Protein backbone atom coordinates (compact mmCIF):
# COMPACT_ATOMS: atom_id res chain seq x y z
CA UNK A 1 0.00 0.00 0.00
CA UNK A 2 1.18 3.52 -0.60
CA UNK A 3 -0.15 6.98 0.18
CA UNK A 4 -0.69 10.01 -2.04
CA UNK A 5 -0.31 13.64 -1.09
CA UNK A 6 -4.02 14.03 -0.32
CA UNK A 7 -3.88 11.09 2.11
CA UNK A 8 -0.84 12.63 3.82
CA UNK A 9 -2.75 15.90 4.22
CA UNK A 10 -5.75 14.03 5.63
CA UNK A 11 -3.59 12.10 8.11
CA UNK A 12 -1.78 15.31 9.11
CA UNK A 13 -5.18 16.85 9.79
CA UNK A 14 -6.10 13.84 11.99
CA UNK A 15 -2.78 14.25 13.82
CA UNK A 16 -3.37 18.01 14.17
CA UNK A 17 -0.13 18.96 12.47
CA UNK A 18 -0.29 21.76 9.90
CA UNK A 19 1.57 20.89 6.71
CA UNK A 20 2.25 23.05 3.68
CA UNK A 21 1.92 21.64 0.15
CA UNK A 22 5.72 21.35 -0.01
CA UNK A 23 5.81 19.49 3.34
CA UNK A 24 3.10 17.12 2.17
CA UNK A 25 4.97 16.38 -1.08
CA UNK A 26 8.21 15.62 0.76
CA UNK A 27 6.48 13.56 3.46
CA UNK A 28 4.59 11.49 0.87
CA UNK A 29 7.90 10.12 -0.44
CA UNK A 30 9.27 9.51 3.05
CA UNK A 31 6.13 7.81 4.30
CA UNK A 32 5.99 5.57 1.24
CA UNK A 33 9.61 4.58 1.91
CA UNK A 34 8.63 3.45 5.41
CA UNK A 35 5.39 1.78 4.29
CA UNK A 36 7.36 -0.07 1.60
CA UNK A 37 9.81 -1.26 4.24
CA UNK A 38 7.10 -2.62 6.56
CA UNK A 39 5.46 -4.47 3.65
CA UNK A 40 7.92 -7.33 4.36
CA UNK A 41 5.47 -8.40 7.07
CA UNK A 42 3.18 -9.73 4.34
CA UNK A 43 5.59 -12.70 4.03
CA UNK A 44 4.81 -13.87 7.57
CA UNK A 45 2.14 -16.47 8.17
CA UNK A 46 0.07 -15.09 11.05
CA UNK A 47 -2.85 -17.51 10.80
CA UNK A 48 -4.11 -18.37 14.27
CA UNK A 49 -1.52 -16.14 16.01
CA UNK A 50 -2.78 -14.02 18.88
CA UNK A 51 -1.69 -10.36 18.85
CA UNK A 52 0.76 -9.37 21.58
CA UNK A 53 -0.88 -7.45 24.39
CA UNK A 54 1.90 -7.59 27.00
CA UNK A 55 5.50 -8.83 26.88
CA UNK A 56 5.39 -9.66 30.56
CA UNK A 57 3.23 -12.48 31.82
CA UNK A 58 1.58 -10.68 34.66
CA UNK A 59 -2.03 -10.04 35.51
CA UNK A 60 -2.73 -6.33 35.26
CA UNK A 61 -2.29 -4.81 38.69
CA UNK A 62 -5.31 -3.00 39.99
CA UNK A 63 -5.19 0.07 42.14
CA UNK A 64 -7.41 0.61 45.11
CA UNK A 65 -10.28 2.90 44.16
CA UNK A 66 -9.28 5.68 46.52
CA UNK A 67 -8.07 9.27 46.58
CA UNK A 68 -4.29 9.17 46.98
CA UNK A 69 -3.27 12.59 45.71
CA UNK A 70 -4.76 15.96 44.92
CA UNK A 71 -5.22 19.63 45.87
CA UNK A 72 -2.44 20.60 43.48
CA UNK A 73 -4.19 22.98 41.09
CA UNK A 74 -1.27 25.40 41.15
CA UNK A 75 1.26 22.65 40.37
CA UNK A 76 -0.95 21.31 37.58
CA UNK A 77 -1.43 24.64 35.80
CA UNK A 78 1.95 26.27 36.51
CA UNK A 79 3.50 25.10 33.20
CA UNK A 80 0.56 26.17 31.01
CA UNK A 81 1.30 28.78 28.34
CA UNK A 82 -1.89 30.59 29.44
CA UNK A 83 -3.80 30.09 32.69
CA UNK A 84 -5.97 32.12 35.04
CA UNK A 85 -7.21 31.21 38.53
CA UNK A 86 -5.98 27.63 38.03
CA UNK A 87 -7.86 27.24 34.74
CA UNK A 88 -6.22 26.51 31.39
CA UNK A 89 -6.97 29.32 28.92
CA UNK A 90 -7.83 28.37 25.32
CA UNK A 91 -9.23 30.27 22.32
CA UNK A 92 -13.02 30.59 22.37
CA UNK A 93 -14.67 27.26 21.42
CA UNK A 94 -18.39 28.14 21.71
CA UNK A 95 -20.18 31.13 20.27
Amino acid sequence: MSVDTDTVKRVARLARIKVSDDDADRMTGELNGILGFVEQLDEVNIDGVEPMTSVVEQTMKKRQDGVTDGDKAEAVTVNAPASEDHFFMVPKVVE
Partner: protein
Amino acid sequence: MTDLTKLTIAEAQKGLKSKDYSAVELTEAFLANIEAANTSLNAYVAVTGDQAMAMAKASDEKLSKGEGGALEGIPLGIKDLFATEGVHTQACSHILDGFKPRYESTVTSNLWADGAVMLGKLNMDEFAMGSSNETSYYGNVVNPWRKSGSNAALVPGGSSGGSASSVAARLCMGATATDTGGSIRQPAAFTGTVGIKPTYGRCSRWGIVAFASSLDQAGPITHTVRDSAILLKSMASVDPKDTTSVDIKVPDYEAAIGQSVKGLKIGIPKEYRVDGMPPEIEALWQQGIDWLKDAGAEIVDVSLPHTKYALPAYYIVAPAEASSNLARYDGVRYGLRVPGNDIVDMYENTRAAGFGSEVKRRVLIGTYVLSAGYYDAYYLKAQKVRTLIKKDFDDTWAAGVDALLTPATPNAAFAPGEITDPVTMYLNDIFTVTVNMAGLPGISVPAGLNPDGLPLGLQLIGKPFDEATLFQVGQVIEDAAGTFEPENWWA
Protein backbone atom coordinates in the same frame (compact mmCIF):
# COMPACT_ATOMS: atom_id res chain seq x y z
CA MET B 1 46.61 14.14 42.75
CA THR B 2 44.81 11.51 40.69
CA ASP B 3 42.18 12.69 38.23
CA LEU B 4 38.98 11.99 40.14
CA THR B 5 36.93 11.89 36.94
CA LYS B 6 38.86 8.80 35.80
CA LEU B 7 37.47 6.72 38.68
CA THR B 8 34.79 4.09 38.25
CA ILE B 9 31.69 4.25 40.43
CA ALA B 10 32.92 1.19 42.33
CA GLU B 11 36.28 2.89 43.05
CA ALA B 12 34.63 6.17 44.07
CA GLN B 13 32.31 4.35 46.49
CA LYS B 14 35.40 3.06 48.32
CA GLY B 15 37.35 6.33 48.10
CA LEU B 16 34.45 8.38 49.47
CA LYS B 17 33.94 5.96 52.36
CA SER B 18 37.64 6.02 53.29
CA LYS B 19 37.66 9.86 52.86
CA ASP B 20 40.45 9.87 50.26
CA TYR B 21 38.45 12.74 48.72
CA SER B 22 35.10 14.37 49.39
CA ALA B 23 31.87 14.28 47.41
CA VAL B 24 32.29 18.03 46.88
CA GLU B 25 35.75 17.52 45.34
CA LEU B 26 34.36 14.79 43.11
CA THR B 27 31.45 16.93 41.94
CA GLU B 28 33.72 19.96 41.37
CA ALA B 29 36.00 17.85 39.18
CA PHE B 30 33.09 16.80 36.96
CA LEU B 31 31.61 20.32 36.79
CA ALA B 32 35.05 21.55 35.64
CA ASN B 33 35.15 18.89 32.93
CA ILE B 34 31.66 19.82 31.75
CA GLU B 35 32.60 23.50 31.65
CA ALA B 36 35.65 22.72 29.52
CA ALA B 37 34.01 20.21 27.19
CA ASN B 38 30.38 21.07 26.63
CA THR B 39 30.95 23.64 23.87
CA SER B 40 32.68 20.92 21.82
CA LEU B 41 30.51 17.92 22.69
CA ASN B 42 27.08 19.49 23.43
CA ALA B 43 26.27 16.59 25.76
CA TYR B 44 24.45 18.63 28.44
CA VAL B 45 21.40 20.80 27.72
CA ALA B 46 21.24 22.04 31.33
CA VAL B 47 23.95 22.01 34.01
CA THR B 48 22.64 22.14 37.57
CA GLY B 49 25.85 23.25 39.27
CA ASP B 50 24.35 24.81 42.40
CA GLN B 51 22.05 21.87 42.99
CA ALA B 52 24.94 19.45 42.43
CA MET B 53 27.11 21.24 44.99
CA ALA B 54 24.29 21.29 47.55
CA MET B 55 23.68 17.57 47.02
CA ALA B 56 27.42 16.83 47.30
CA LYS B 57 27.67 18.81 50.55
CA ALA B 58 24.74 16.88 52.00
CA SER B 59 26.47 13.64 50.94
CA ASP B 60 29.70 14.70 52.68
CA GLU B 61 27.78 15.33 55.90
CA LYS B 62 26.29 11.85 55.75
CA LEU B 63 29.61 10.25 54.84
CA SER B 64 31.35 12.04 57.73
CA LYS B 65 28.94 10.35 60.12
CA GLY B 66 29.55 6.98 58.51
CA GLU B 67 26.08 7.09 56.94
CA GLY B 68 24.87 7.37 53.39
CA GLY B 69 23.25 5.30 50.64
CA ALA B 70 24.68 3.00 48.02
CA LEU B 71 25.43 5.91 45.65
CA GLU B 72 26.30 8.54 48.25
CA GLY B 73 28.20 11.37 46.53
CA ILE B 74 28.32 9.74 43.06
CA PRO B 75 27.84 12.43 40.34
CA LEU B 76 25.47 11.40 37.55
CA GLY B 77 24.03 12.88 34.37
CA ILE B 78 20.31 12.48 33.67
CA LYS B 79 18.77 12.09 30.21
CA ASP B 80 16.38 14.96 29.46
CA LEU B 81 13.53 12.41 29.16
CA PHE B 82 13.36 11.94 32.96
CA ALA B 83 11.19 14.37 34.91
CA THR B 84 13.34 16.21 37.46
CA GLU B 85 11.53 18.54 39.80
CA GLY B 86 12.03 22.22 38.96
CA VAL B 87 14.67 21.39 36.35
CA HIS B 88 14.70 21.45 32.51
CA THR B 89 12.68 18.42 31.28
CA GLN B 90 11.88 18.77 27.60
CA ALA B 91 12.74 15.45 25.91
CA CYS B 92 14.95 17.83 23.86
CA SER B 93 11.85 18.99 21.96
CA HIS B 94 10.80 22.54 21.15
CA ILE B 95 7.20 21.66 22.02
CA LEU B 96 8.07 21.31 25.73
CA ASP B 97 9.71 24.77 25.82
CA GLY B 98 10.27 25.91 29.37
CA PHE B 99 8.69 22.83 30.98
CA LYS B 100 9.83 22.32 34.57
CA PRO B 101 7.84 19.54 36.25
CA ARG B 102 6.66 19.75 39.84
CA TYR B 103 7.41 16.07 40.32
CA GLU B 104 10.33 13.66 40.09
CA SER B 105 10.47 10.43 38.06
CA THR B 106 10.59 7.22 40.10
CA VAL B 107 13.98 6.24 38.65
CA THR B 108 15.65 9.54 39.57
CA SER B 109 13.90 9.57 42.98
CA ASN B 110 15.48 6.17 43.63
CA LEU B 111 18.92 7.53 42.68
CA TRP B 112 18.66 10.59 44.94
CA ALA B 113 17.34 8.43 47.79
CA ASP B 114 20.53 6.39 47.46
CA GLY B 115 22.64 9.58 47.68
CA ALA B 116 23.56 10.26 44.04
CA VAL B 117 24.36 13.82 42.89
CA MET B 118 22.71 15.33 39.78
CA LEU B 119 25.11 17.23 37.50
CA GLY B 120 22.50 18.19 34.90
CA LYS B 121 20.27 17.08 32.03
CA LEU B 122 21.67 15.32 28.99
CA ASN B 123 21.01 15.91 25.31
CA MET B 124 19.11 13.26 23.33
CA ASP B 125 17.20 12.76 20.11
CA GLU B 126 13.84 14.57 20.24
CA PHE B 127 11.38 12.36 22.18
CA ALA B 128 14.03 9.59 21.96
CA MET B 129 13.37 9.20 18.23
CA GLY B 130 16.67 8.77 16.45
CA SER B 131 19.84 6.71 16.16
CA SER B 132 22.42 9.47 15.82
CA ASN B 133 21.42 12.32 18.15
CA GLU B 134 20.83 14.55 15.13
CA THR B 135 17.13 15.20 15.88
CA SER B 136 17.52 17.15 19.16
CA TYR B 137 16.12 20.69 19.23
CA TYR B 138 19.35 21.54 21.09
CA GLY B 139 21.65 20.44 18.26
CA ASN B 140 23.80 17.41 17.60
CA VAL B 141 25.79 15.69 20.31
CA VAL B 142 29.38 15.00 19.24
CA ASN B 143 31.08 11.67 19.88
CA PRO B 144 34.34 12.02 21.86
CA TRP B 145 35.74 9.32 19.57
CA ARG B 146 37.21 10.19 16.15
CA LYS B 147 38.78 8.03 13.48
CA SER B 148 42.55 7.71 13.96
CA GLY B 149 44.32 10.64 12.33
CA SER B 150 41.07 12.47 11.57
CA ASN B 151 39.43 15.47 13.20
CA ALA B 152 36.04 14.99 11.55
CA ALA B 153 33.08 14.78 13.94
CA LEU B 154 31.18 11.53 14.44
CA VAL B 155 27.73 10.90 15.90
CA PRO B 156 27.51 9.29 19.38
CA GLY B 157 24.51 7.18 18.35
CA GLY B 158 21.06 7.74 19.73
CA SER B 159 18.75 8.38 21.21
CA SER B 160 20.78 8.46 24.45
CA GLY B 161 23.67 10.23 22.68
CA GLY B 162 24.24 12.77 25.45
CA SER B 163 24.33 10.01 28.06
CA ALA B 164 26.89 7.97 26.10
CA SER B 165 29.03 10.93 25.08
CA SER B 166 29.14 12.39 28.61
CA VAL B 167 30.18 9.07 30.16
CA ALA B 168 32.85 8.42 27.49
CA ALA B 169 34.27 11.95 27.90
CA ARG B 170 34.24 11.82 31.72
CA LEU B 171 31.56 14.49 32.11
CA CYS B 172 29.73 12.27 34.62
CA MET B 173 30.49 9.04 36.39
CA GLY B 174 27.43 7.31 34.95
CA ALA B 175 24.23 8.37 33.24
CA THR B 176 20.59 7.40 33.04
CA ALA B 177 19.32 6.52 29.59
CA THR B 178 16.27 4.93 27.97
CA ASP B 179 15.89 2.31 25.26
CA THR B 180 12.85 1.79 23.00
CA GLY B 181 14.56 0.11 20.04
CA GLY B 182 18.26 0.29 20.93
CA SER B 183 18.67 3.79 22.38
CA ILE B 184 20.91 2.64 25.26
CA ARG B 185 22.88 -0.13 23.59
CA GLN B 186 23.66 1.48 20.22
CA PRO B 187 25.15 4.72 21.65
CA ALA B 188 27.04 2.67 24.26
CA ALA B 189 28.57 0.61 21.43
CA PHE B 190 29.47 3.80 19.48
CA THR B 191 31.30 5.36 22.45
CA GLY B 192 33.10 2.43 24.09
CA THR B 193 30.79 2.41 27.12
CA VAL B 194 28.58 -0.21 28.77
CA GLY B 195 24.80 0.10 28.48
CA ILE B 196 22.04 -2.20 29.67
CA LYS B 197 18.34 -2.18 28.81
CA PRO B 198 16.69 -4.24 31.55
CA THR B 199 13.60 -6.42 31.18
CA TYR B 200 10.39 -4.52 30.43
CA GLY B 201 8.82 -3.82 33.82
CA ARG B 202 12.10 -3.76 35.78
CA CYS B 203 12.43 0.04 36.00
CA SER B 204 9.37 2.17 36.60
CA ARG B 205 8.33 4.28 33.63
CA TRP B 206 6.59 6.79 35.90
CA GLY B 207 7.86 10.31 35.20
CA ILE B 208 9.70 9.34 32.02
CA VAL B 209 8.35 11.19 28.97
CA ALA B 210 6.55 8.44 27.03
CA PHE B 211 7.56 7.48 23.47
CA ALA B 212 6.25 3.92 22.90
CA SER B 213 4.88 2.67 26.19
CA SER B 214 5.05 -1.08 25.49
CA LEU B 215 8.74 -0.82 24.54
CA ASP B 216 10.28 1.99 26.65
CA GLN B 217 12.66 0.99 29.46
CA ALA B 218 15.21 2.95 31.48
CA GLY B 219 18.73 1.74 32.15
CA PRO B 220 22.25 3.03 32.87
CA ILE B 221 25.27 3.86 30.70
CA THR B 222 28.61 3.51 32.52
CA HIS B 223 32.31 2.77 32.04
CA THR B 224 32.29 -0.77 33.34
CA VAL B 225 29.97 -3.75 33.67
CA ARG B 226 30.23 -3.54 37.45
CA ASP B 227 29.20 0.13 37.43
CA SER B 228 26.13 -0.76 35.36
CA ALA B 229 25.21 -3.42 37.90
CA ILE B 230 25.57 -0.87 40.71
CA LEU B 231 23.45 1.79 38.97
CA LEU B 232 20.73 -0.58 37.77
CA LYS B 233 20.25 -1.89 41.29
CA SER B 234 19.38 1.65 42.42
CA MET B 235 17.32 2.59 39.35
CA ALA B 236 15.14 -0.54 39.37
CA SER B 237 12.22 -0.88 41.77
CA VAL B 238 8.68 -2.12 42.13
CA ASP B 239 6.47 0.94 41.70
CA PRO B 240 2.74 1.14 42.40
CA LYS B 241 2.61 4.24 40.14
CA ASP B 242 3.44 2.11 37.05
CA THR B 243 1.03 -0.80 36.52
CA THR B 244 3.55 -2.48 34.19
CA SER B 245 6.21 -2.44 36.92
CA VAL B 246 6.68 -6.09 37.88
CA ASP B 247 6.48 -7.39 41.45
CA ILE B 248 9.89 -9.01 41.61
CA LYS B 249 12.46 -7.98 44.21
CA VAL B 250 15.55 -6.25 42.76
CA PRO B 251 18.50 -8.61 43.23
CA ASP B 252 22.07 -7.64 44.09
CA TYR B 253 23.39 -7.61 40.54
CA GLU B 254 26.97 -6.97 41.65
CA ALA B 255 27.05 -10.39 43.30
CA ALA B 256 26.90 -11.99 39.84
CA ILE B 257 30.12 -10.31 38.74
CA GLY B 258 33.22 -12.46 38.90
CA GLN B 259 31.25 -15.69 38.96
CA SER B 260 32.44 -18.32 36.52
CA VAL B 261 30.57 -18.81 33.26
CA LYS B 262 31.74 -22.43 33.07
CA GLY B 263 28.94 -24.61 31.76
CA LEU B 264 26.67 -21.70 30.78
CA LYS B 265 25.02 -22.26 27.42
CA ILE B 266 25.50 -19.25 25.12
CA GLY B 267 23.43 -19.20 21.93
CA ILE B 268 24.66 -17.73 18.63
CA PRO B 269 21.60 -16.81 16.52
CA LYS B 270 22.34 -17.47 12.87
CA GLU B 271 19.82 -14.89 11.63
CA TYR B 272 22.04 -12.10 13.02
CA ARG B 273 24.64 -12.96 10.37
CA VAL B 274 23.05 -10.45 7.97
CA ASP B 275 23.92 -9.88 4.33
CA GLY B 276 26.68 -7.34 3.84
CA MET B 277 27.89 -7.51 7.43
CA PRO B 278 31.28 -5.73 7.55
CA PRO B 279 34.23 -8.10 8.18
CA GLU B 280 35.18 -6.11 11.32
CA ILE B 281 31.80 -6.94 12.90
CA GLU B 282 32.08 -10.57 11.85
CA ALA B 283 35.59 -10.76 13.39
CA LEU B 284 34.45 -9.08 16.61
CA TRP B 285 31.60 -11.55 17.01
CA GLN B 286 33.96 -14.52 16.48
CA GLN B 287 36.35 -12.99 19.02
CA GLY B 288 33.53 -12.81 21.55
CA ILE B 289 32.62 -16.45 20.89
CA ASP B 290 36.26 -17.46 21.46
CA TRP B 291 36.50 -15.48 24.71
CA LEU B 292 33.40 -17.11 26.15
CA LYS B 293 34.54 -20.56 24.98
CA ASP B 294 37.93 -20.00 26.66
CA ALA B 295 36.12 -19.05 29.87
CA GLY B 296 34.31 -22.40 29.84
CA ALA B 297 30.94 -21.48 28.35
CA GLU B 298 29.27 -23.87 25.96
CA ILE B 299 28.58 -22.25 22.58
CA VAL B 300 25.49 -23.45 20.69
CA ASP B 301 24.01 -22.38 17.36
CA VAL B 302 20.41 -21.27 17.64
CA SER B 303 17.76 -20.02 15.25
CA LEU B 304 15.38 -17.08 15.75
CA PRO B 305 13.49 -17.33 12.45
CA HIS B 306 11.45 -14.12 12.75
CA THR B 307 14.43 -11.84 13.43
CA LYS B 308 14.23 -9.97 10.12
CA TYR B 309 10.62 -8.98 10.79
CA ALA B 310 11.36 -7.27 14.12
CA LEU B 311 12.40 -3.95 12.59
CA PRO B 312 9.44 -3.58 10.20
CA ALA B 313 7.02 -4.61 12.98
CA TYR B 314 8.72 -2.09 15.29
CA TYR B 315 8.17 0.70 12.75
CA ILE B 316 4.44 0.08 13.01
CA VAL B 317 4.12 -0.52 16.76
CA ALA B 318 6.43 2.27 17.97
CA PRO B 319 5.01 5.09 15.78
CA ALA B 320 1.45 3.95 16.58
CA GLU B 321 2.12 4.24 20.32
CA ALA B 322 4.03 7.48 19.80
CA SER B 323 1.17 9.09 17.88
CA SER B 324 -1.12 8.35 20.85
CA ASN B 325 1.36 9.43 23.51
CA LEU B 326 2.30 12.66 21.72
CA ALA B 327 -1.35 13.69 21.30
CA ARG B 328 -1.04 15.40 24.69
CA TYR B 329 1.20 18.16 23.28
CA ASP B 330 -1.55 20.56 22.31
CA GLY B 331 -0.30 23.97 23.41
CA VAL B 332 -2.74 24.03 26.32
CA ARG B 333 -1.22 22.36 29.36
CA TYR B 334 2.51 22.87 28.98
CA GLY B 335 5.25 24.06 26.69
CA LEU B 336 4.94 25.88 23.42
CA ARG B 337 1.77 27.56 22.11
CA VAL B 338 1.52 29.09 18.65
CA PRO B 339 -1.71 31.10 18.27
CA GLY B 340 -4.27 30.35 15.54
CA ASN B 341 -7.66 31.50 14.23
CA ASP B 342 -9.48 28.99 16.41
CA ILE B 343 -8.57 26.19 18.79
CA VAL B 344 -7.91 23.57 16.09
CA ASP B 345 -5.75 26.05 14.19
CA MET B 346 -3.86 26.68 17.43
CA TYR B 347 -3.27 22.92 17.91
CA GLU B 348 -2.08 22.54 14.34
CA ASN B 349 0.22 25.55 14.43
CA THR B 350 1.68 24.53 17.79
CA ARG B 351 2.40 20.96 16.71
CA ALA B 352 3.78 22.09 13.32
CA ALA B 353 6.25 24.44 15.02
CA GLY B 354 6.97 22.32 18.08
CA PHE B 355 7.78 18.93 16.56
CA GLY B 356 10.87 18.26 14.46
CA SER B 357 10.69 16.39 11.16
CA GLU B 358 11.52 12.90 12.50
CA VAL B 359 8.85 13.21 15.20
CA LYS B 360 6.29 14.43 12.64
CA ARG B 361 7.16 11.54 10.35
CA ARG B 362 6.53 9.00 13.12
CA VAL B 363 3.35 10.66 14.35
CA LEU B 364 1.97 10.60 10.79
CA ILE B 365 2.94 6.95 10.24
CA GLY B 366 1.38 6.08 13.60
CA THR B 367 -1.80 7.99 12.85
CA TYR B 368 -2.05 6.33 9.45
CA VAL B 369 -1.58 2.73 10.66
CA LEU B 370 -4.15 3.25 13.41
CA SER B 371 -6.68 4.96 11.15
CA ALA B 372 -9.97 3.36 10.12
CA GLY B 373 -9.50 0.68 7.48
CA TYR B 374 -5.77 0.21 8.07
CA TYR B 375 -5.67 -0.95 11.70
CA ASP B 376 -5.91 -4.70 10.90
CA ALA B 377 -3.52 -4.55 7.95
CA TYR B 378 -0.78 -2.82 9.89
CA TYR B 379 -1.10 -2.56 13.64
CA LEU B 380 -2.84 -5.86 14.36
CA LYS B 381 -0.53 -7.72 11.99
CA ALA B 382 2.55 -6.18 13.61
CA GLN B 383 1.35 -7.22 17.07
CA LYS B 384 0.86 -10.79 15.80
CA VAL B 385 4.38 -10.80 14.35
CA ARG B 386 5.56 -9.56 17.72
CA THR B 387 4.03 -12.65 19.34
CA LEU B 388 6.08 -14.79 16.94
CA ILE B 389 9.29 -12.86 17.69
CA LYS B 390 8.82 -13.43 21.41
CA LYS B 391 8.05 -17.11 20.79
CA ASP B 392 11.40 -17.52 18.99
CA PHE B 393 13.15 -16.40 22.17
CA ASP B 394 10.90 -18.46 24.46
CA ASP B 395 11.74 -21.59 22.44
CA THR B 396 15.45 -20.83 22.81
CA TRP B 397 15.24 -20.46 26.59
CA ALA B 398 13.15 -23.64 26.78
CA ALA B 399 15.98 -25.46 24.99
CA GLY B 400 18.28 -24.60 27.90
CA VAL B 401 20.13 -21.59 26.47
CA ASP B 402 21.22 -19.13 29.20
CA ALA B 403 21.99 -16.06 27.06
CA LEU B 404 22.60 -15.04 23.45
CA LEU B 405 25.68 -13.31 22.01
CA THR B 406 25.32 -10.97 19.01
CA PRO B 407 26.99 -7.82 17.67
CA ALA B 408 25.46 -4.66 19.19
CA THR B 409 25.38 -2.66 15.96
CA PRO B 410 25.94 -3.38 12.24
CA ASN B 411 28.66 -0.69 12.04
CA ALA B 412 30.79 1.77 14.04
CA ALA B 413 29.92 5.46 14.56
CA PHE B 414 29.30 7.41 11.35
CA ALA B 415 29.50 11.10 10.42
CA PRO B 416 26.64 13.54 11.02
CA GLY B 417 24.67 14.02 7.80
CA GLU B 418 26.00 10.75 6.38
CA ILE B 419 22.64 8.95 6.67
CA THR B 420 19.69 10.97 5.37
CA ASP B 421 17.26 8.21 4.36
CA PRO B 422 14.99 7.39 7.34
CA VAL B 423 14.83 3.63 6.65
CA THR B 424 18.65 3.39 6.35
CA MET B 425 18.90 5.14 9.72
CA TYR B 426 16.37 2.70 11.23
CA LEU B 427 18.59 -0.23 10.16
CA ASN B 428 21.11 0.83 12.83
CA ASP B 429 18.82 -0.85 15.37
CA ILE B 430 18.63 -4.16 13.50
CA PHE B 431 20.39 -6.15 16.28
CA THR B 432 18.87 -4.34 19.26
CA VAL B 433 15.19 -3.92 18.37
CA THR B 434 14.23 -7.62 18.69
CA VAL B 435 15.01 -7.36 22.41
CA ASN B 436 12.50 -4.52 22.92
CA MET B 437 9.84 -6.32 20.88
CA ALA B 438 10.18 -9.34 23.21
CA GLY B 439 10.64 -7.27 26.41
CA LEU B 440 13.98 -8.94 27.21
CA PRO B 441 17.10 -7.55 28.87
CA GLY B 442 20.10 -6.74 26.66
CA ILE B 443 23.56 -5.35 27.46
CA SER B 444 26.15 -3.81 25.15
CA VAL B 445 29.75 -4.28 26.25
CA PRO B 446 32.74 -2.64 24.47
CA ALA B 447 34.72 -5.43 22.80
CA GLY B 448 37.29 -3.83 20.55
CA LEU B 449 38.27 -1.13 18.07
CA ASN B 450 37.74 -1.27 14.31
CA PRO B 451 40.61 -0.61 11.84
CA ASP B 452 39.79 3.15 12.08
CA GLY B 453 40.26 3.05 15.86
CA LEU B 454 36.54 3.33 16.66
CA PRO B 455 34.86 1.29 19.40
CA LEU B 456 32.55 -1.65 18.68
CA GLY B 457 30.27 -3.47 21.10
CA LEU B 458 28.96 -6.97 21.63
CA GLN B 459 25.43 -7.54 22.84
CA LEU B 460 24.24 -10.18 25.29
CA ILE B 461 20.51 -10.96 25.42
CA GLY B 462 19.06 -12.60 28.51
CA LYS B 463 15.97 -14.33 29.81
CA PRO B 464 13.26 -12.15 31.38
CA PHE B 465 14.50 -10.69 34.70
CA ASP B 466 17.83 -12.48 34.37
CA GLU B 467 19.96 -9.33 34.17
CA ALA B 468 22.37 -11.01 36.62
CA THR B 469 23.56 -13.48 33.94
CA LEU B 470 24.20 -10.57 31.55
CA PHE B 471 26.45 -8.90 34.13
CA GLN B 472 28.19 -12.23 34.83
CA VAL B 473 28.92 -12.93 31.14
CA GLY B 474 29.49 -9.24 30.32
CA GLN B 475 32.30 -9.12 32.86
CA VAL B 476 34.06 -11.98 31.05
CA ILE B 477 33.97 -9.95 27.81
CA GLU B 478 35.22 -6.84 29.62
CA ASP B 479 38.05 -8.80 31.28
CA ALA B 480 39.15 -10.14 27.89
CA ALA B 481 38.66 -6.95 25.86
CA GLY B 482 39.78 -4.35 28.39
CA THR B 483 38.29 -0.87 28.56
CA PHE B 484 38.53 1.89 25.96
CA GLU B 485 39.24 5.60 26.37
CA PRO B 486 39.07 8.24 23.62
CA GLU B 487 41.99 10.63 23.22
CA ASN B 488 41.03 13.98 24.73
CA TRP B 489 40.83 16.59 21.92
CA TRP B 490 37.87 18.52 23.33
CA ALA B 491 39.33 20.27 26.38
